[in-house]
C-alpha cells in the first residue's frame, strides 16, 4: 500500500494538452474516484500513475518516492480494465496466476494464492475454463482477482463496471466497496458516472478540461460544489441553473431572478460579494417543492411529469427557464397546470455568470 502525490502533472499528446499541471494527494488506503466527462484527462492521469504513459511534466510520488522513471512493471500497481483485458488463450487459473508467474513465485505459493482469491471472488468453479465463455460480471471478477492476487501497492480501476447491465452494476459496486473495506488498498477509480463515484469513494476528484475542478468528500462535492461545472456534473437529476442578479441592498445582499427577489442567507454573502452583479443561481431538484412553503416562490406551468413510482420528476416552465423538481409520488400535477414552486433558500448556490459556459458545453 502506498500514498500518492502528484505535482504539477502535465500530459501532452503532440500539440494536445490532456492534463494541465494538476496537483493532488491521495492517502494510504484511501479510495478516490476520478470523475469527469470523456476527454477530461481522467484516463491520462490514471495511466501516468500506472506507468503506461510517460509523464510530460511534473512528478508523481509513491510514499514520497519519485516514480517518474520507474517502469510500469516495477511500480507494483494493479489495474482493472473496462474491457477486462483477460488473456484469451489461457485458463482463468492461469490468468489469475499470471502476475505471480511473472514475478517468479514458486508453484505451491501461486496455487495457494490463486485458490484463496478465487474463493473470495466466487470463481473457484470456473478456474479451469477459458475466458471466452464467461459472463461480463464473471470476467470482471477475474480481472479484479488477477489485480488483487499480488497484493498491489496501488489498485487502479478504469471504468470497471460500465459494460455491465444495471443489476450487475449494483452488485459489482457493492463488491468493490467491500473489497476496499476488507483489503484497505489505496484505490483509484476512474468513471464518468457520478453515482458510482459518490457511492464508492472516500473522496471524489472532479476533472474537466485537464484540470481538477474540485477534490473533496462526496458530501462536499454534492452540497458545496466549487463551481458551476461541478454543480452541474454531480447530482441526478441534474441541478437547476437560472440566470440571476446579485446586488447589495439596504438589508444586505439580495439575489433576483425571474422577477423574484430574495435576501441571501449569511452563508452566501461571500459568494455574493465576489460575484456582485450578473450571476448564476443553482438549486438541486430535491430542494424544490410544489406549494407555498418558503419565502422564495416562483409561478410556473407544468411541462411534463415523469412518474418513477418511488418519486415523481416534475418539469416546470418558469418564464424562460425550465426547472426540474423531485416530488413525492402522490404529487401528480396536470400538464399546463399553473403551480407555485418553492425554493429552499438554505440550499441555493451562487456562481459567477462566466461559469455558465462550462455548463452549457457539458449539456451539449
Amino acid at each position, binding site marked *: 500500500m502506498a500514498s500518492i502525490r502528484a505535482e504539477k502533472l502535465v500530459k501532452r499528446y503532440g500539440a494536445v494538452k490532456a492534463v494541465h499541471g494538476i496537483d493532488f494527494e491521495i492517502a494510504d488506503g484511501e479510495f478516490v474516484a476520478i470523475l469527469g466527462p470523456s476527454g477530461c484527462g481522467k484516463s491520462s492521469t490514471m495511466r501516468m500513475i500506472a506507468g503506461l504513459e510517460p509523464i510530460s511534466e511534473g512528478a508523481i510520488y509513491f510514499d514520497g518516492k519519485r516514480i517518474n522513471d520507474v517502469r510500469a*512493471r516495477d511500480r507494483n500497481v494493479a489495474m482493472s480494465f473496462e474491457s477486462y*483485458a483477460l488473456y*484469451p488463450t489461457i485458463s482463468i487459473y492461469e490468468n489469475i496466476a*499470471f502476475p505471480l508467474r*511473472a514475478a517468479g513465485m514458486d508453484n505451491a505459493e501461486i496455487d495457494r494464492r490463486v485458490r484463496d482469491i478465487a474463493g473470495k471472488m466466487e470463481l473457484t468453479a470456473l478456474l479451469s475454463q477459458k475466458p*471466452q465463455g464467461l459472463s461480463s460480471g464473471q470476467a470482471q471478477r477475474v480481472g479484479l482477482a*488477477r489485480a488483487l492476487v499480488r497484493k498491489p501497492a496501488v489498485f487502479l480501476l478504469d471504468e470497471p463496471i460500465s459494460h455491465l447491465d444495471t443489476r450487475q452494476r449494483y452488485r459489482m459496486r457493492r463488491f468493490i466497496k467491500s473489497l476496499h473495506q476488507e483489503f484497505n488498498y489505496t484505490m483509484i477509480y476512474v468513471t464518468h458516472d457520478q453515482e458510482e463515484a459518490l457511492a464508492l469513494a472516500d473522496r471524489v476528484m472532479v476533472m474537466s478540461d485537464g484540470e481538477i475542478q474540485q477534490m473533496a468528500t462526496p458530501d462536499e462535492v454534492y452540497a458545496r460544489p466549487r463551481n458551476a461545472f461541478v454543480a452541474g456534473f454531480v447530482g441526478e437529476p441534474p441541478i437547476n441553473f437560472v440566470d440571476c442578479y446579485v446586488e447589495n441592498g439596504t438589508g444586505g445582499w439580495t439575489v433576483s431572478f425571474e422577477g423574484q427577489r430574495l435576501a441571501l442567507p449569511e452563508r452566501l454573502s461571500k459568494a455574493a460579494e465576489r460575484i456582485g452583479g450578473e450571476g448564476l443561481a443553482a438549486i438541486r431538484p430535491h430542494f424544490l417543492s410544489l406549494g407555498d412553503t418558503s419565502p422564495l416562490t416562483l409561478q410556473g406551468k407544468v411541462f411534463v411529469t415523469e412518474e418513477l413510482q418511488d418519486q415523481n420528476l416534475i418539469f416546470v416552465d418558469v418564464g424562460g427557464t425550465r426547472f426540474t423538481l423531485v416530488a413525492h409520488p402522490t404529487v401528480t400535477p396536470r400538464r399546463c397546470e399553473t403551480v407555485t414552486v418553492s425554493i429552499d433558500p438554505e440550499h441555493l448556490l451562487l456562481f459567477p455568470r462566466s461559469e455558465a459556459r462550462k455548463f452549457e458545453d457539458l449539456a451539449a
Partner: protein
Amino acid sequence: MLQRDSSFAKEALRYGLIVLVLGFIVFPIFWMIVTSFKPAADIMVSPPRFLFTPTLENYYHAIYDKNFLFYIKNTLFISVASTILVVVAGSLAAYSFARYNVGDGHILFFILSTKMFPAIAVILPYFLIFRDIGKTDAGRFLGIGLDQPGALIISYTMFNLPFAIWLLVSFFQDIPRELEHSARLDGLSRLKVLRKVVFPLAAPGIAVTGVFTLIFCWNEFLFAYILTRKAASTVTVGVESFFTLQGILWGPVAAAATISVLPMMVFVLAMQRYMVRGLTFGAVRG
C-alpha cells in the same frame, strides 16, 4: 410438398455447383497423379485411357535419372529460410505499424506499393546485382550470388515481406491494447509482453502469413529460372528440365510434379486448423 420440392432443387443445385467447382480444382491434380503412374505408351493417347497397368517407372526416372529429390531439398531449404525471415521481420514490422503508427500510414503504403511493382521489371537488375555480389568474398561466403540459395532467399523475402506486413498489421490491430497494458503492469518487460501475450494471440495470423509465403516460395518460377543454373535450382525449374530436345517426358513430369506438390499438401493440411482460425480472426475478446 411444394416446400420440399424447392428445397430439394436448392440442395441439388448446391451439390451440383460443389461438384462442378471441385471438378475444376481436383481433376487436374487427379489427372497428374494418374498420369504419373502410366506407362509412356498410355499417356498421350486419344481417347484418354482410364484403365492401364500402373508403373513406378516415371518415379524411378524422375528420382534416379534426373535426381529430382535434389531440387526438393533446394526448394525446401530456400522456402523455409525465406518464410522464417518473412515471418520474423514481418511480425516485428507489422506490430510497430499497428501499435505506433510508424510513418503515419505513409511508410506502410509505400511498402505495400512495392508489391505492385512487376517482378519482371526488376529481374534484370537483380541478376546483375547478384552476379556482382557473387564475385565478392562476402558474397561467396554467405552464398549470395548467381546459382546460390542466398540470392533466392533474399529475393523471395523481398517480394513477400510487403504482403506479409500488410496481412499481419490487421491481426495485430485486432489485439486489444489493454492486454498489453495489463501484462506490463503484471510485471512483464516489453519484449516478454510480445512473446507471451501478443505473439500467441497473433499466432493464427502468423500461421496464415507463413503458409502463404511458403506456398509462394515453393511455386515461384521466374526468379528461380533466371537466378539459378543447377546448384540452387528449385522444383519449378527442375520440372522444366524435363522438357528435353527429345520431347517432353510427360510421365516423369507428372511424377516430379506429384512429388513436389506432396510436401505442400501435407503442410497445408497440418496447418488447416490455424488457417481457418486465422482467416476468421477478429474476435479476440475476453
